[in-house]
Structure formats: structure tokens, C-alpha cells
């Protein structure tokens, strides 16, 4: 309990240490110590704004997910760039897609929405009032349902494994 008070968000603390090192742009013992200090201190200050920290199971899944997403991002960008540069506007076929969610953790939903936005020609436009659905706008597709299924299968499933 005390530990939880002192280190409200271990992950964040680590993230902050990394951030610090990036900021000072020099890996030295001093910087590491300083960064660790701030990394521990800052979350304590900002803890009230992040009441209940999410629990992350299967950290290695995170790595896998990150890699997939990065790859998708690049793919997405190439696709989109192609559409923008070479596809005549009238040939572009956009769709609204409703993606019902099984995720219930706010963090997970956010990550999913973010992923959707960053990956193949889709932008997550908004959630439903109770966070049960994501409204996705698809820049160009002939089969909206396929897109939805890919989202649920490729990302949401993994996120469920990570967050629940």
C-alpha cells in the first residue's frame, strides 16, 4: 500500500526516466539518478489525476503489439499516400463503420482508437456515449465489414489479452 502511494505508476516512472534521458540527451550515471528521482517524484504529484492505474498482464504481448502497430503504421502511410497522390477523388469510396467494443478499460479503448487512427486508411471519429462503440471513418474501402473484423481481430483481441 505504501509502495503504491510512493510509486503510483511504476510504468510511468520508467517512461519518465526514459523521457529524462532523452531530454538531457546524454546517458550518464548522474542523469540516470536524476531522471529516476524525477521519474519517481512527478507521478506522485500527478497521481491524483490518474486515480486507478490499469493492470497490464503479459507485458511481452505489449512488445508484439507495438511491433505490429509500427509495421501497420508504415503500411497505412504508404497506402494513404498512394491514395492521396494518385487516386482521383471520385474513385475514393469512404465509409462510416461502427465498431462495437468488448474492451472496457478506458486505457485499452484509447489505445485501440489510437491504433485505428494510425493504421490502414481509418480514423476513429468518436466513441458512443457509454464507450461501447467506436465510430470509424474509412478513407477507402469496398468492404466495410472486413475492415471492422480486421480491427476487432487484429487489435482488439490483442489488447484484451494485454489489459484483461
Amino acid at each position: 500500500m505504501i509502495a503504491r502511494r510512493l510509486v503510483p505508476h511504476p510504468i510511468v516512472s520508467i517512461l519518465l526516466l526514459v523521457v529524462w534521458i532523452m531530454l538531457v540527451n546524454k546517458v550518464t550515471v548522474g542523469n540516470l539518478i536524476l531522471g529516476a528521482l524525477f521519474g519517481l517524484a512527478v507521478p506522485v504529484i500527478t497521481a491524483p489525476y490518474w486515480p486507478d492505474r490499469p493492470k497490464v498482464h503479459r507485458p511481452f504481448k505489449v512488445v508484439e503489439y507495438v511491433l505490429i502497430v509500427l509495421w501497420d503504421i508504415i503500411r497505412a502511410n504508404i497506402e494513404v499516400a498512394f491514395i492521396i497522390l494518385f487516386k482521383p477523388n471520385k474513385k475514393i469510396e469512404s465509409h462510416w463503420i461502427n465498431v462495437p467494443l468488448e474492451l472496457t478499460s478506458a486505457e485499452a479503448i484509447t489505445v485501440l482508437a489510437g491504433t485505428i487512427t494510425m493504421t490502414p486508411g481509418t480514423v476513429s471519429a468518436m466513441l458512443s456515449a457509454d464507450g461501447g462503440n467506436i465510430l470509424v471513418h474509412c478513407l477507402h474501402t469496398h468492404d466495410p465489414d472486413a475492415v471492422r473484423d480486421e480491427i476487432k481481430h487484429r487489435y482488439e483481441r490483442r489488447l484484451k489479452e494485454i489489459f484483461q
Partner: protein
Amino acid sequence: MELVAEILISAFLVIAGIFGIAGSYGLIKLRDSMQRLHAPTKATTLGVGGVLIASVLYFALIKQTISFHELLITIFLLLTAPITANFIAKTFLAQNVEPEELPGTGRDYGWAVYEDPPGGTGIADEEQRGE
């Protein structure tokens, strides 16, 4: 080695440039606002990403000085781009699109822009709070 580095860096720069221009071009080319939204969120982000990586490589390989703080900016952008896109999309929808024009949620709560969340939007403040 030197040459390889140069080629690598140059490649990153050129690709970044192409993505960058693609994003901005899409902004004027595409016909409706939602479509335009796709362009920058992705292309430009990656464009910047490319530039930042190029910078890292440049300092590392050519100047022989380790410099990775550019990555922080990349993280920043990757973290914020979806939120930005989300907000802009809502701005567009709220101003120009009626709920009927959208697919339903198929559940008892509609889309957030048009419907109050369960349990309303808060309480009237008897402004005793704060200082």
C-alpha cells in the same frame, strides 16, 4: 561505411519529404473534411518521424555524437495525433452531420457527440470549490 550512412540518411529524408508533401497535398486535394482528416494524421506524422530518425542517424553516424532526443518528439506526435484527429472529427461531425446520417451503435447509447453519457453530465456547482 560513410557512403552507406549517407545513403541511408538521404533515403530517410527523401521518404520523409514525400510523406510530408503527400499529407499536405491531401489536405487541399481531398473533397470532404473527413477524408482530408486522413492525410495529415498519418502521412505528415510519418514524414516528421522520418525526419527525426534521419536526424538521429545523422548525428550518430556522421557527427559521431549520440543524440536521440529527437525520438521524444516522435513519441509526442504518435501519442497526440489520434487525440487530435478524434477531436477534429468530432468538431466536424457536431457541426455538419446529423446522427441519422451515421450507422447506429446498435445499443441503447448513441454516439457521444449527440447523446449525454449515462448519469448525465455532472452537477450544478454551488461554486464553493477552489480557492
